[in-house]
């Protein structure tokens, strides 16, 4: 495994190993000295062409705790704003001798394209509405912490599926790990071609949460309504969306006692998730953030600590 571009790149064995490694990495977070040596002398560049708080900072922390040198480059204030092409920017950064690129880009497929241009490992930190594999890994890690083994567990992913890279990566990874996924969204926010995805779909949140539609739900993941990616009218009003697809206190009651509530953040409180759901005992939102660092440490370790790809 040289790059991490898609959750589909991970075999079940790879995914389980990364999650197990992440568990060891998380033990470091409780130590006084949060520093491990395996990436000493390696340089990781976070190349972010789109805004991000948690992903960028958690990649940065993960790299630093593994002793790598981490540099952040954001599109604002870079040569891109002077008209340089993406390829030139990326090759310039690589030519400085970096050992890995962590890339977020607003265009789907841009990260995979970059991986073809450069010779160092490339990690996808979110590309457009396509994929966000480390988010799927941290969600799987959080779910494992709450539910144990994920095989035959049933996860409902609810909300703006069309614009969600998180949903796609999660469907792929949860499938790999043997879990069942049901996507719930209004028809306008269900992506074209979803029929070919390895999951069930539904437009009726109440039926899914109560287990009447596709069986009991073991966990529910609420997705952010991504207004910045919406050009047309995907739903009449926010109030109507909240009534139909928001995780209200009443809907929370439909869930089984142990079922955790996930949200990749940032949350639109009152829209897709109520404060009672976001702050309640079922909420694992902050566990997800903490898992993000551990999982990214595990991925960086896996991709960078070894000798690298043996040249053919």
């Amino acid at each position, binding site marked *: 495994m040289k790059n991490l571009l898609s959750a589909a790149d991970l075999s079940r064995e790879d995914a389980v*190993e990364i999650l*197990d*490694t992440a568990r*060891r*990495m998380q*033990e470091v977070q409780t*130590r006084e*000295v949060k*520093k*491990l*040596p*395996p990436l000493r002398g390696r340089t990781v560049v976070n190349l972010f062409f789109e805004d991000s708080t948690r992903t960028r900072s958690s990649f940065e922390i993960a790299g630093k705790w593994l002793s790598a040198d981490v540099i952040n480059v954001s599109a604002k204030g870079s040569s891109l704003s002077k008209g340089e092409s993406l390829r030139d920017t990326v090759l310039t950064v690589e030519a400085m001798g970096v050992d890995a690129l962590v890339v977020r880009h607003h265009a789907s497929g841009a990260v995979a394209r970059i991986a073809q241009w450069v010779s160092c490992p490339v990690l996808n930190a979110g590309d457009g509405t396509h994929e966000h594999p480390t988010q799927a890994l941290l969600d799987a890690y959080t779910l494992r912490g709450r539910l144990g083994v994920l095989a035959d567990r049933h996860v409902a992913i609810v909300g703006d599926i069309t614009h969600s890279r998180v949903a796609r990566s999660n469907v792929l990874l949860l499938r790999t790990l043997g879990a069942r996924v049901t996507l719930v969204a209004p028809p306008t926010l269900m992506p074209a071609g979803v029929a070919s995805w390895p999951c069930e779909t539904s437009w009726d949140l109440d039926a899914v949460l109560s287990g009447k539609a596709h069986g009991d739900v073991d966990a529910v993941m609420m997705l952010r309504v991504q207004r910045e990616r919406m050009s047309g009218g995907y739903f009449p009003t926010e109030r109507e969306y909240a009534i139909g697809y928001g995780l209200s206190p009443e809907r929370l009651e439909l869930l089984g006692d142990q079922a955790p509530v996930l949200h990749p953040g940032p949350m639109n409180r009152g829209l897709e998730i109520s404060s009672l759901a976001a702050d309640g005992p079922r909420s694992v939102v902050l566990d997800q953030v903490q898992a993000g660092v551990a999982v990214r440490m595990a991925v960086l*370790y*896996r991709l960078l*600590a*070894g*000798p690298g790809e043996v040249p053919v």
Partner: protein
Amino acid sequence: MAEHRRAPVPDPRGAEGTVILREADVGRVVDRMAHEIIETVAKGDFDAVLLGIPTRGVPLAYRLGARIEVFAGVALPVGSIDITLYRDDLRVRGVRPLAQTLQPEGGITGRSVILVDDVLCSGRTCRAALDALTELGRPRLVQLATLVDRGHRQLPIRADYVGKNIPTSATQNVRVLLAEVDGSDAVIVEEGR
């Protein structure tokens, strides 16, 4: 990715190679090491911990702890210390899965730490363990206990407690089997290939 894990051999008599220690021998050797450790740590009022290096150093540390409790009536805290991230051959031999680091009760700062491993050879594992230790705390004293010392040191490191010195050639392999991991106890020298 799993080439460093060896297949378990349930019956040492069926394994190839020369059996150096059998089940009963291993028991006696562990008992002697326990007595030697007691002699030392008794001077420090038993303010010591046993830290096993995974994989087989960990059950060995627990066994030593149990025998010390039988002989001296004192239960030393036992933990484990994973050294994978501190190895100097990650870049050469590739990444490997991590094992558990378990801080012994009360931590290690200010106490005597006895590192426990199954085989001492190049000394590189022990060096990595010393590095890993500094991030867990500052022990008063660090010692090394090993079931087998097979020679071929590449670093200025020696063990304080040795179960059995086994002179070997560089091409031979020493395999320590422990009941907790392998189903039975034995020490076997195999001819390398």
